[in-house]
């Protein structure tokens, strides 16, 4: 027999109240833990996701939108920038690597990204980590083919424009089928895409226009893509992307129409005088030779009329500063639930003291000291919070684990559900403290119990 056994006996005697108050603590802690895990996990994943992306260049507009679109395959593209911007940056001595991206289609909701083979051969999505293939190979890429595709796309744009205004074109653009027009439409799919769509190497799929799935979306039935490779999981948003050869992207009907805001602003005469714009892309990901080049290049690009640069890490920090306020409110609610549970514990034990005065008097008569009685009541309150906190932490992790597939579907990420965070220790310690504080009132009442008066026989 020891004090712990007395405490557990007391808790069992008040089973209903004990269960209800433990459940309240559990609920609050589970909620708090789930919020903390998701927040911490998402923040880590988002920050980690930016590691390989030093700078992103895209159409002028919202830098956050540009980052979300390019790095995380979220949101829509803010617009297009001319291919010449890419060529200029690629030849800039400060730039180590430039990778172009073009978006505009999806397959079953998974974004199709037109890019070059540099993405797989040279780009590190995290420092020291390049894409690896789980099956197949990467698509074939040729810059000459891309230029032809641009020409063809420009031709189609003009043809469409002429049709719209009723003009006759002097010479139709003819596809050079022998060179590139019959290039296979090849795709390399991310790990999550392969898993969720069951696409395998050699299978074909039809893309739909638009970056989001829609019932009315026009399907590119004339150009099915063939899966030539499946990427190994990267645990980044890239797992949810389908990468296609950039030139095949521009072979698709409709992809010639998108124009940047700057192009819109251009006078028609100027457009005609210049060399025809070889094409447009959604964004460019840059790796620089030195971090010292980052700020000057950032300023140069942002001072230009055609494009805008953004630092993904900085944009994500800003995003979490905004989102942080929302989850702080949620966290405050969870803490409030735990505090209310603490008050419920105090009230419940305090009320039980009237029924337990005799038991306390008996224990005192048997030799229990006042401080032992005080400790028994405090321990009872602490035990409720302890059990509530432990089960709450477990439930919180389980909720995140169960919710991970949904989270992955929505954001492309999962958060580590079974990894204990330091902050959970603080939550746990906070609960123990809450238990001790909640028990103070009832313990003080127990401490003051009149022994002789409560030992007398009751009729």
């Amino acid at each position, binding site marked *: *027999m*020891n004090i712990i056994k007395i405490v557990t006996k007391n808790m069992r005697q008040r089973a209903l109240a004990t269960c209800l108050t433990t459940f309240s603590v559990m609920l609050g802690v589970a909620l708090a833990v789930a919020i903390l895990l998701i927040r911490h996990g998402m923040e880590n994943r988002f920050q980690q996701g930016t590691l390989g992306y030093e700078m992103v260049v895209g159409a002028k507009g919202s830098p956050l939108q540009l980052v979300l679109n390019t790095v995380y395959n979220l949101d829509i593209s803010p617009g297009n920038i001319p291919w010449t911007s890419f060529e200029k940056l690629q030849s800039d001595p400060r730039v180590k690597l430039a990778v172009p991206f073009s978006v505009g289609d999806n397959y079953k909701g998974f974004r199709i990204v037109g890019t070059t083979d540099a993405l797989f051969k040279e780009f590190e999505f995290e420092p020291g980590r390049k894409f690896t293939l789980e099956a197949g190979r990467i698509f074939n890429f040729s810059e000459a083919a891309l230029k032809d595709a641009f020409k063809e796309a420009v031709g189609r744009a003009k043809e469409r424009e002429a049709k719209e205004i009723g003009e006759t074109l002097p010479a139709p653009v003819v596809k050079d089928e022998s060179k590139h027009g019959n290039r296979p439409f090849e795709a390399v799919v991310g790990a999550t895409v392969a898993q969720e769509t069951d696409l395998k190497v050699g299978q074909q799929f039809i893309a739909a226009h638009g970056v989001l799935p829609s019932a009315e979306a026009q399907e590119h039935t004339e150009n099915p893509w063939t899966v030539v490779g499946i990427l190994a999981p990267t645990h980044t948003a890239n797992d949810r992307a389908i990468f296609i050869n950039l030139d095949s992207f521009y072979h698709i009907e409709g992809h010639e129409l998108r124009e940047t805001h700057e192009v819109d602003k251009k006078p028609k005469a100027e457009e005609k005088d210049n060399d025809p714009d070889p094409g447009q892309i959604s964004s460019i990901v840059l790796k620089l030779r030195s971090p010292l080049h980052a700020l000057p290049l950032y300023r140069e690009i942002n001072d230009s009329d055609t494009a805008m640069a953004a630092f993904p890490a900085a944009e994500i920090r800003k995003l979490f500063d905004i989102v942080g306020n929302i989850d702080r409110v949620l966290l405050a609610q969870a803490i409030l639930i735990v505090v209310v549970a603490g008050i419920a514990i105090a009230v419940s034990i305090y009320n039980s003291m009237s029924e337990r005065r005799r038991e306390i008097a008996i224990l005192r008569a*048997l030799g229990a000291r006042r401080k032992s009685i005080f400790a028994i009541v405090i321990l009872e309150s602490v035990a409720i919070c302890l059990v509530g906190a432990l089960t709450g932490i477990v439930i919180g992790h389980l909720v995140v684990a169960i919710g991970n597939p949904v989270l992955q579907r929505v954001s492309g990420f999962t958060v580590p559900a079974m990894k204990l965070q330091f902050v959970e220790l603080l939550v746990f310690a906070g609960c123990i403290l809450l238990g001790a504080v909640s028990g103070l009132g009832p313990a003080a009442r127990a401490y003051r119990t009149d022994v002789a008066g409560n030992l007398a026989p009751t009729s």
Partner: protein
Amino acid sequence: MPDLTNKPVLELRDLRKSFREADGGEIEVIRIRQFTLSPGEQVALAGQSGSGKSTLLNLIAGILLPDSGEIAVNGTEITRLSEAERDRFRAANIGYVFQSFNLLQGFTALENVLLGQMFGRGNGAPDHALKLLETVGLADRIDHKPRALSVGQQQRVAIARALVNAPSLVLADEPTGSLDAKNGEVVLELLRRICSETGHALLVVTHDAQVMTRFPKVVKMEELR
């Protein structure tokens, strides 16, 4: 272990205890000039209801403090001890049997006895408690909670609990008061027999004339004034 020398187990001298009444007045409940109890002695302290019998036992047990006077148990003047010291002293030296048994309802018979042991000797092995329950005839009821026991059995558990720390002094407050005549007789004989065998001094307060006849020495409360 009980002190078998001639030194009294209990000595009361010039003991007074009053209680304040609701109207602000004071009522003197205890006034004892002198009383001693020798080792192994068994005494019935007789008095009518409200004569201060239970208060006297609470004073001897150190649960209450007198207004004045001395209470020495085994030579220790307990009125000079701190409350915590009195608690420890009580657990180790005094066994207390109540009229209404005062068993903890959530605990089994064995656990109730072990509770007495826990505060007296610390967390010892249950062997002694088991032996005592066997002695009081409850070997087959150790896992029963008080509600599952008859009143006679409950009082026997209370006796085992009072004796578990081998106290030199056993106090019993109307131990047969809640029992029928037959059960009362059985319980009283059991208590007396065990105290005789172990040499514990036994002080029983009662207003039951039947109980008084069982004791070799009966002292009336009025005689102590």
